[in-house]
């Protein structure tokens, strides 16, 4: 089953691992943006989550507690953003950038004593019976719980936004906060919740890098993944399913191109290196352009809501 020296089973399995951090963070940011808040601090929340998760996992010996701590850490930082933008009504773009700067610095400070330590590893969940299916089994059913959690989250977010009352309220707040306010919905509360969810998901994504994908703590470990997640939300035109496609495309092609290089494929390396960006943008733009003429952005994205 080898294609050009690459085993597709191994490739697909590592594709899912490589894509999970982006998927988690992008999904959280999508919900935040759906409520009309543009939080550019994804990178900062991810790295804070990465360090909080790492510290908690090392100290308690439990990766599960690590992920819980990561979600709390990411959420705590996002609450700061919420306080700034929802209570003190600062502009969201600089507040988000500041959050990234602060998160990076904070993570570096917290992680000082944790460089070079090996975290406890998260066991792979071997789904009984299903894992024995040839080809698909090892690819899909032998990952750790967080991979499944992220896939479940895609469905959950999609269903939440589409079918639940709370999801409708959240979208209403993002489309027209004045009208939502007039109807008696608590705009700020909804936005705080959305910001918090975004922070928690970014924290989980960060912890997935420091606990599973790399497993170690190093300064600057997220190395710009948060920005990719932000971009994927936009290119996926704020739809959960497309966020999944975007994240898997980006993560997948990143892994694929490294494998192609390692296998000595006769493709120029420059082309391979830019292929994740290129393919993700092209695919998402094409599918977004077909269905809707205009942009699908929440109308109140980045606007300050002022109750008078």
């Amino acid at each position, binding site marked *: 089953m080898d294609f050009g*020296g*690459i*085993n597709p089973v*191994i*490739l697909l399995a*590592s594709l899912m691992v*490589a894509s999970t*951090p982006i998927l988690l963070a992008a999904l959280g940011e999508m919900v935040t943006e759906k409520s009309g808040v543009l939080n550019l601090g994804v990178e900062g929340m991810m790295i804070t989550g990465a360090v909080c998760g790492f510290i908690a996992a090392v100290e308690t010996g439990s990766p599960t507690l690590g992920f819980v701590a990561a979600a709390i850490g990411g959420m705590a930082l996002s609450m700061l953003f919420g306080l700034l933008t929802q209570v003190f009504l600062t502009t969201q773009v600089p507040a988000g950038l500041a959050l990234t700067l602060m998160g990076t610095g904070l993570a*570096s400070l917290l*992680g*000082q004593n944790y*460089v*070079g*330590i*090996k975290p406890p*590893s998260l066991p792979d969940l071997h789904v009984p019976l299903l894992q024995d299916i040839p080809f698909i089994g090892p690819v899909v059913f032998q990952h750790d719980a967080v991979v499944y959690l992220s896939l479940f989250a895609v469905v959950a977010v999609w269903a939440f936004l589409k079918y639940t009352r709370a999801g409708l309220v959240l979208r209403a707040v993002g489309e027209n906060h004045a009208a939502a306010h007039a109807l008696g919905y608590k705009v700020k509360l909804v936005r705080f919740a959305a910001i918090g969810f975004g922070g928690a998901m970014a924290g989980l994504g960060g912890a997935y*890098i420091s606990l599973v*994908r*790399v*497993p*170690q703590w*190093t*300064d*600057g*470990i*997220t*190395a*710009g*993944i948060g920005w990719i997640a932000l971009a994927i939300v936009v290119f996926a035109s704020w739809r959960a399913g497309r966020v999944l496609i975007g994240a898997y495309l980006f993560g997948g092609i*990143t*892994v694929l191109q*490294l*494998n192609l*290089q*390692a*296998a*000595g494929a006769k493709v*120029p*390396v*420059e082309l391979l*290196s830019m292929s994740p960006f290129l393919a993700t943008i092209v695919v998402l733009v094409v599918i977004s352009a077909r269905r809707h003429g205009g942009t699908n952005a929440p109308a109140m994205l980045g606007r300050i809501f002022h109750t008078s």
Partner: protein
Amino acid sequence: MKRRTLLTAAAAASALTLGLGAPAFAEDPTKVGFIYVGPVGDGGWTYEHDQARLKVEAHFGDKVETMFQESVPEGADAERAITQMALSGADIIFTTSFGYMDPTINVAAKFPNVKFEHATGYKTADNVGVYSARFYEGRAVQGTIAGMMTKTNKVGYIGSFPIPEVIRGINAAYLHAKKVNPDVEFSVVWAYTWFDPAKEADAAQALIDQGADVILQHTDSTAPHAAAQKAGNVITFGQASDMSEYAPMPRVSSIIDNWAPYYIERIQAVMDGTWESDNTWDGIGPGMVGIGEISDAVPEDVKAAALEIKDKIASGEYHPFTGPINKQDGTPWLAEGEVADDGTLAGMNFYVEGLTGEIPQ
């Protein structure tokens, strides 16, 4: 109005204090700036530069004041960062990555009184010196260990950018692995980054998936070691820093950069007013390149062979690029016994014979 009077009075008072206080300082401290490509906690390249900065502080005490900016992207933004440092009164600025070469030269032209030292580049000016270490000497030692220890005869190499420094390392490692193991094959993956732990881990994983059981890296984080550790029977080498937290397995040895003596010497020259633009390129002999302890995971005979080649290089008895060596396309480069000159090495843009793949141009 009142407040303004108060402020003026306060300003005058502080000016007075400063004026009176001034004679207490014999002279202003020499201000030294560092521009880093990664975070100081990367555990590799930038970490070692920062360790050297701390040694500079310890050596000179109150006579120096150091400042640094970390994670400065290579390219246009570097120019802003270097300019900022020059404006804030630095007397000498060390720019510590290859990609800062043109920005350093540009900024230096605007600040003729500030001294600049650019690491691993080749462009100099009246106030710009360059320095680098002969990492390829360390690569020769690594290649020897890699060639003797690989069981699959596949060695993976994570390259950062296709620049001469990295290509030299690949060539040196390959030549010496080949010397002890004629069947050895190298696969090179270009990560196009100096520091991105997740990507470095993925690159290491891809190489391991392809059957490599030795991973050499020219990127700065310890992520490939973590990937190798997870995989089991794969050995790695510390890059720029000892990375001993991964010893004895997977990290079996390392190349350690030791910049402190050079920094201290150059800063002393600035203090004495004797600084001149230079081009320093030191290796194992003078101690700029250190070989980290070879761990117990390495069999005794391999260790002995590695140490022998290290000692021969240190004493100057042996040069890692000694002919006969052909280029990748089979054209002769060095004749029997001929030694590569520094000019060719500094601009090396070709693979030696036996390496597969192409260097991205």
